């Protein structure tokens, strides 16, 4: 068993707690029941457009960041709070390996926990359009990758990552982007939304990021955060 596998296994075992399962189940239930409501609504409106609008708001804007926050911020955050990070940090293994395995283990749980409910909701809400479903699934994977990187970093940067994460999601991603259109382009949500719209080929596309730009941006955010986490692990005082 290599060092990386050891770390990855440790982090993965710590991802799943009953509280988080309930949270993921809760979001899935809310998304699916809302999608069901849209599906059964009588007026004939552009199904795909309404599905995308709904999932950009509730899915990419709320479900994915919250689930990613709860999982990723605790991967290293809990170790800092329980003062057990020293047992990994003080070993003769490279620090980037700790950061990378933390990021990947939280992503590996967040992706299925968001892609499945969001994809199914898209399918339902858009009245069975597989293309919209795939587009939303891809967008939520990308968003999960970026958010997990960001919140893994938050776990080692601040004392209460959950609170700061929620502030980030509700203040930066929703409020500010709504108020100042320009800033909106910098949020992970806008990249993910751009990808879902472009892949689904629905709705006004001008002014949205291009597909490659969105993918590269999110991957850059993810890997960039791993780099910052490594730098922080080297610099911080360990209990």
């Amino acid at each position, binding site marked *: 068993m290599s060092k990386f596998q050891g770390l990855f296994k440790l982090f993965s075992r710590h991802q799943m707690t009953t509280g988080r399962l309930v949270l993921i189940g*809760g979001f899935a*239930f809310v998304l699916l*029941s809302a999608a*069901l*409501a849209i599906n*059964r609504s009588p007026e004939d409106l552009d199904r795909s457009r309404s599905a995308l609008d709904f999932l950009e708001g509730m899915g990419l804007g709320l479900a994915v960041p919250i689930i990613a926050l709860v999982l990723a911020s605790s991967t290293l955050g809990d170790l800092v709070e329980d003062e057990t990070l020293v047992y990994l940090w003080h070993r003769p293994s490279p620090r980037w390996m700790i950061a990378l395995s933390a990021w990947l283990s939280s992503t590996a749980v967040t992706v299925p926990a968001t892609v499945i409910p969001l994809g199914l909701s898209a399918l339902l809400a858009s009245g069975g359009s597989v293309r919209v479903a795939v587009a939303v699934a891809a967008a939520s994977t990308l968003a999960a990758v970026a958010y997990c990187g960001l919140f893994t970093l938050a776990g080692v940067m601040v004392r209460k990552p959950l609170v700061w994460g929620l502030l980030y999601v509700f203040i930066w991603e929703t409020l500010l982007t709504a108020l100042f259109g320009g800033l909106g382009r910098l949020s992970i949500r806008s990249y993910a939304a751009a990808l879902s719209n472009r892949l689904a080929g629905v709705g006004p596309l001008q002014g949205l990021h291009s597909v490659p730009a969105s993918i590269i941006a999110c991957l850059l955010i993810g890997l960039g955060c791993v780099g910052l986490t490594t730098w922080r692990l080297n610099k911080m005082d360990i209990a």
Partner: protein
Amino acid sequence: MSDAQIFDQGYRTYSGERTGLKGALRSLIVHSLRASLGLGRKARHKIVPVLTVAISYLPAIIILGIAVLFGGGAADDANYYSYYDNSISIAVILMVAFIVPQLLCTDRRTGLLGVYLASPLNRPTYLLGKAITSIILLLLVTLGPPLLILLGYSLQGVGPHGFGQWIETFIKIVASSLVLGLFLTAVGLAISATTDRWATATATIIGALIASTIVTEVLVTEAKLPPAIRLANLIGLPITLIHRIHNDVGEWSYTDNPTWSLWLGVVGWLCLTLGFVWARYRTLLVRR
């Protein structure tokens, strides 16, 4: 005769009478009440209590002010329960969500539970004390305002006519406050028994109250499921029952839910939640 004395500064034994379990319970309740209302604690602990009292009493005081200044105001008991719909229920939700969790969670986190269990209290009497404290807190915001108004109107002479009518209104108000207070106490204590962190309990309570309302509404109206589902609405159930007590069919109608089923729902939830709290505390390993 020497006028100098050296007094024994040593330890004074206490041979007076001890107040037993009754005294311990009273002390627990008084201490918990003071702590919940932020008395004897830093200012920031007083914000929520003051807020809840303000939200619940202000409308009543305003209405009384108007009635006194301009006379008139409704004579029959039509509007005593209306406060339960808005101002009181907001205050009650705030109280249940932010203050009730601190009754149980902080004792476990700060090790005070271990001290209580080593005192004449034991697990059942401890929980009884905390439940009584919670009911007192909730009655503070649910019983106060309507009684204030009843008193105000009576003094104004526009209250319910006749002694029998007055007593009936009084009993209805007390019953409604007790229903709301007891029901939410049980729900609040049950959720607070699951975690040490009161902040998590607060979030869960708010989530549970709101989610149960939305989900039951969606399921009953949208998915056309049987109306009995409404019994799972943690806010709607008690409030509707209060309206039934005041035999009004106002905005919270639920006409297709018979009154007995509402009572059954409330009693069922009480047994479920209080049973859960007891089961949880019976086996709780007090390591702290």
